[in-house]
């Protein structure tokens, strides 16, 4: 009973707090007579980080293009398409992966813009799918005994027709830098749903998913992109308070 009291107090204060702020918003909207114009359209873009990595990083090449379509005030249907090739070198194994991927899902804009601004803090969900091939370039037998040091075995084997599925949560920021041109950055947390594993080997890298972990189904990623909004129509947002 002693513990319930502060919890209740906390709940009440939160409720009262939000209620107060809602009331404040209503008041502001009621006095605001300029209608908000919201742009709807298709936004197309490309990742800047992957071409840059292609130039400066050995053993990597890739690109990603993306598009989104504003469905409602807050929701955007989104799709990403990409291709990656990556050499993965571990002390005991080295491999090369290349393939294509697609991600489809939606973004939710959690940011309330000021009048005339088109920025966004987005929360997104995606379903990701990749088809790729992986080549085992060389490997060593693990040994911690100095009696017979392991030799590197160069016996390249190619595993093609591999695929992987994952779910992805995206947290991102979009800023309109000039009219209809956006700069975005996002971080991605992915969870593998399924994958086809090569015989007597594993997928060290999955295009679109990035590196895998032996003891976890999770992966991470990021995108730094520039995109352009092709406006299709504009919607005037009429405050409900005014009609009352």
């Amino acid at each position, binding site marked *: 009973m002693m513990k319930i009291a502060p919890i209740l107090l906390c709940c009440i204060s939160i409720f009262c707090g939000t209620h107060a702020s809602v009331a404040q918003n209503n008041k502001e909207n009621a006095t605001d007579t300029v209608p908000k114009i919201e742009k709807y359209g298709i936004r197309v873009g490309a990742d800047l980080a992957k071409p840059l990595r292609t130039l400066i990083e050995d053993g990597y090449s890739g690109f990603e293009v993306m598009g989104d379509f504003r469905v409602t005030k807050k929701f955007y249907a989104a799709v990403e398409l990409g291709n990656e090739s990556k050499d993965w070198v*571990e*002390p*005991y*194994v080295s491999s090369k992966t290349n393939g294509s991927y697609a991600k489809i899902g939606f973004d939710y804009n*959690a*940011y309330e813009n000021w009048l005339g601004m088109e920025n966004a*803090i987005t929360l997104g969900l995606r379903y990701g799918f990749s088809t790729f091939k992986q080549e085992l370039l060389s*490997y*060593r*037998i*693990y*040994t*911690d*005994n*100095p*009696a*017979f040091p*392991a*030799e590197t*075995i160069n016996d390249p084997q190619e595993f093609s027709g591999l695929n992987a599925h994952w779910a992805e949560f995206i*947290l991102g*920021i979009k800023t309109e830098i000039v009219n209809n041109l956006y700069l975005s950055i996002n*971080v991605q*947390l992915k969870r593998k749903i399924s994958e086809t594993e090569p015989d*007597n*080997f*594993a997928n*060290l890298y999955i295009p679109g998913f990035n590196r*895998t*972990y*032996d*003891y*976890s189904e999770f992966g*991470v990623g990021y995108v730094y992109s520039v995109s352009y909004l092709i406006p299709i129509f504009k919607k005037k947002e009429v405050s409900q308070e005014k009609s009352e």
Partner: protein
Amino acid sequence: MIKKIFASILIIFAFKGCTKDDICPPDTATTPNLIINFKDITNPANAKKVNLLSVITNNIDSVEVVKLANTDSIAIPLNTNSDTTNYLFKRSIVSGSDTIKNFDKVRFVYQRRNLYVTRACGYKSEYFNLDKNLEEEGAENWIQEIILLRDTVNDENSAHITVLH
């Protein structure tokens, strides 16, 4: 809001750092060793310690894998780069200021199979169709007999070989 987002980004990248995937954990089942136990020739049911046992790889750059141990059970590696492993089993009996050394040559022949373990550990070898051979020296041998218990070496749960002496 912005602060929260940066905090989340930091958390994600902090956990991205050091994981079990970066080093091969010592408890991982990698290439198994050959387990040998030593028993009494007069009563093969009884374990008998070798006083003192050394096991040395019988090749150019020889390595001592067991050093002057008073033991009845050893775990020794098999060569992962070849289908044969040659060892010298040395018994050193210390009497007073003298040490009487006796070398017996043992050869293990097998086939290998390489299996993927994890990204940090790479591959391991398993051995099958294991066979053993003791070079006969008549009365000079301190090893009387080698008995093969299991011809597949894919774990270290029990002995693969029994040596009677």
